[in-house]
């Protein structure tokens, strides 16, 4: 049953995510604790400002007492194993603590809010690009598969190979250099112009800022997606029932979109989403080039400011999105593939 398949897959995803977070906590526990200790010191110092009338000795005792309190609160007085486990649990329940430097636009220092601010912006950019890429990629792939070895197929396959190792961020740099500082067609980066216009103009302004990053991702992803689609569709087009459909005089477009697409949908969707997922995880730093204030840009800032809590939380969230993407992919596959839907072995 699909229900059980889905449940099983989601559970597996959750367990995997927990395992990954546990690994991170194992790898990065020391540095996270050092940052936390630094933050506690800062807090103790600030609090002791209030006790100006106390004598030096009393103040010192009070500070030590407070430090012990805070260490206990943050479980820094436990054994190493416990600390690692608790860190993993905290991350799993999204208790990321406070950042050291980075703030949200409103000035909040909770890491979860910083990430919450960046996440929708990344989502906006990447989902729009993905939709565009899938649409044009499938169209290109089908056209390529129709006449394999033809001029369109050959030329686009050649481009696929040419852009195979092209870093998206470098293409972004080039496009900025030409289209922004050379011709001055687009803004150099960011989400909105300063000052931000109101009403419908605000949306248009946002779209105008999105064009260049989207174009960059599209120019790289589009070809390879078309290539993947071509290979899958080509396999299906060699089947007998396609030939019989053509022989019956069914219009070519109907054969392509009706008959071929139905069979090749499951692997198509999987491959397309998988390649896109990989490309997104790869172009995470690409946002920094365009100063697009999403999760990728947050990596740049967190590294520049050496803000460890934000860096680690960002990693946890990115991993979570990636994991969710993998689960989602399998769910779609299962949904499209009748063998799983009816209840064969998953």
């Amino acid at each position, binding site marked *: 049953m699909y229900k059980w398949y889905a449940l099983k897959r989601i559970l597996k995803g959750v367990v995997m995510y927990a395992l990954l977070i546990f690994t991170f906590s194992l790898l990065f526990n020391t540095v996270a604790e050092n940052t936390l200790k630094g933050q506690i010191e800062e807090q103790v110092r600030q609090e002791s400002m209030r006790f100006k009338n106390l004598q030096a000795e009393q103040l010192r005792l009070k500070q030590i007492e407070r430090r012990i309190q805070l260490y206990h609160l943050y479980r820094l007085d436990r054994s190493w194993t416990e600390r690692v486990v608790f860190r993993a649990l905290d991350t799993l329940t999204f208790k990321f603590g406070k950042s050291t430097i980075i703030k949200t636009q409103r000035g909040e220092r909770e890491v979860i809010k910083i990430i919450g601010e960046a996440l929708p912006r990344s989502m906006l950019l990447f989902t729009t690009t993905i939709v565009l890429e899938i649409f044009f990629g499938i169209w290109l792939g089908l056209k390529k598969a129709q006449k394999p*070895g033809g001029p369109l197929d050959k030329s686009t396959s050649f481009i696929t190979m040419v852009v195979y190792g*092209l870093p998206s961020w470098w293409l972004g*740099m080039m496009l*900025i250099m030409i289209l922004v500082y050379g011709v001055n067609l687009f803004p*150099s980066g960011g989400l909105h112009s300063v000052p931000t216009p109101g009403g419908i103009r605000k949306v248009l302004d946002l779209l105008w800022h999105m064009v260049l990053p989207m174009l960059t991702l599209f120019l790289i992803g589009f070809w390879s997606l078309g290539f993947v689609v071509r*290979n899958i569709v080509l396999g299906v087009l060699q089947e007998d029932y396609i030939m019989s459909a053509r022989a019956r005089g069914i219009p070519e477009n109907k054969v392509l979109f009706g008959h071929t697409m139905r069979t090749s949908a499951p692997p198509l969707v999987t491959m397309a989403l998988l390649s896109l997922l990989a490309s997104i995880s790869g172009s995470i730093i690409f946002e920094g080039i365009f100063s697009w204030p999403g999760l990728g840009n947050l*990596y740049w800032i967190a*590294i520049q400011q050496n803000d460890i809590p934000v860096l*680690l939380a960002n*990693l946890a969230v990115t991993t979570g999105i990636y994991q969710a993407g993998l689960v989602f992919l399998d769910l779609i596959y299962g949904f499209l593939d009748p063998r799983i839907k009816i209840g064969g072995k998953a």
Partner: protein
Amino acid sequence: MKLMDVTYRFREFWEEFRKEKNGLVGLGILGIAMLAVLAEPILLPFPEAGSRWRDITYWQDNSASAPPAWTNFFTSKKSAVSRVLSNPAVEETGPSERTYAFEYDYRFNGPPNDFILRGRGSGTLPLTVTGFRPDGLSVEVVRYVLSGLSDEPFRLSLGNEGRSNAMEFLKGWERRKNAPQIATMRYGVTDILFSQAQPDFVKGPVPLDGRYRIEVRAGFTDSGAAVDSIELAVVGRVSGVLGTDSMKRDIFSGVVAGMKWALLIGLLTSVISVLVGVFYGITSAYFGSRVDSIMMLVFDYFISLPVLPILIVFSAIYKPSIWTIIAALIVFSWVGPVKTVRSMALQIKEETFIEAARALGSGHRRIIFRHMAPLLIPYSFASMALAVPGAIVYEASVSLLGLGDATIVTWGQILHDALGSGAVLNGLWWWVVPPGLLIAVMGMTFAFLGFAMDKILHPKLKTR
């Protein structure tokens, strides 16, 4: 498998590969890249570029942010090219005086930024530098005494030391009424030295073409005085094959020195990780049942790691060396071929020759290494080639964030510096284009190779 089999299969493969034009192009570019790595000592204009990339003193005699020398072909205003004048004509001009004469042929519109006199010296050395111009005039640019040297390198910037003398020279023929302008505009020594001596210089200097002679007179009155390997560096406005960056580093040297690292990262990562992946897949398929389930669980764990984010955070926290980065890349990317190899191995496992081998008493290891692996490894060659660009781009991405190994120079690091110094903003294309283009070309090369091999080894993808 015997050697004859290997050569036979290779020849068979080569017969097919020869027909793939793209594959041959890829092979050609790879060959050129390999040659460039081997010929690095000959190719590098700055031999220590790789090891002293971040040493400012090594690059101090270059000009900053200079475009490539060949840009002169595309502009009407030619700029002086950076070069080093060595082997001066030596002449004994007095009882304890020697003259070193440098000939400089100047046919440009934009004079050099500076001249650097350098060499090794000992003792106390009075130096006088005089410039003889094609129009017969001469300027005593610098009078300087080097002292307290003991076979040490010395360095004298004529642009810094000769300013007042050049100003005097300028005042000799410029109109008196322009004097205030001269004082405020602060012309460089070379601007004055390479311009025609005619009034109204301040309205726009007119370049004076011709052969210049720069004489360095050194006095040897001090008994221990000696001078050696004296040369004059012309700090031009355009420089080298690919220009310089804002830290005066020669970009061509950096790019060539980065080539070996790119190839090393790419090839080492892909070969090791694909081999690990192939054997992992075979083992998992061969043993089946419980071993298979456990191995697939581990595989699932590794496949759900988002490579780049983890690599970035890891590098930010542990500041790894290039070897650690390669090791980390291998840990992340061995999962690539596992799924395909496993499904192929599952088929091979059921073949009769495996059964026969088992019946003859072959051990597990023998079956895996002698019977299954030789059939599957050729398929992994395509995966190896296709895994190279990814590894190169990953390292470049980490370096772009400034987290690379600081003891070497890679293309990503050059781009990091370019981004940090606003090369994109200021249009210093010779700094941004070459490293990125080379990453892209390397990716293309291995894509050509990989796709060509894929086509031969998986005939299903062949176009009808």
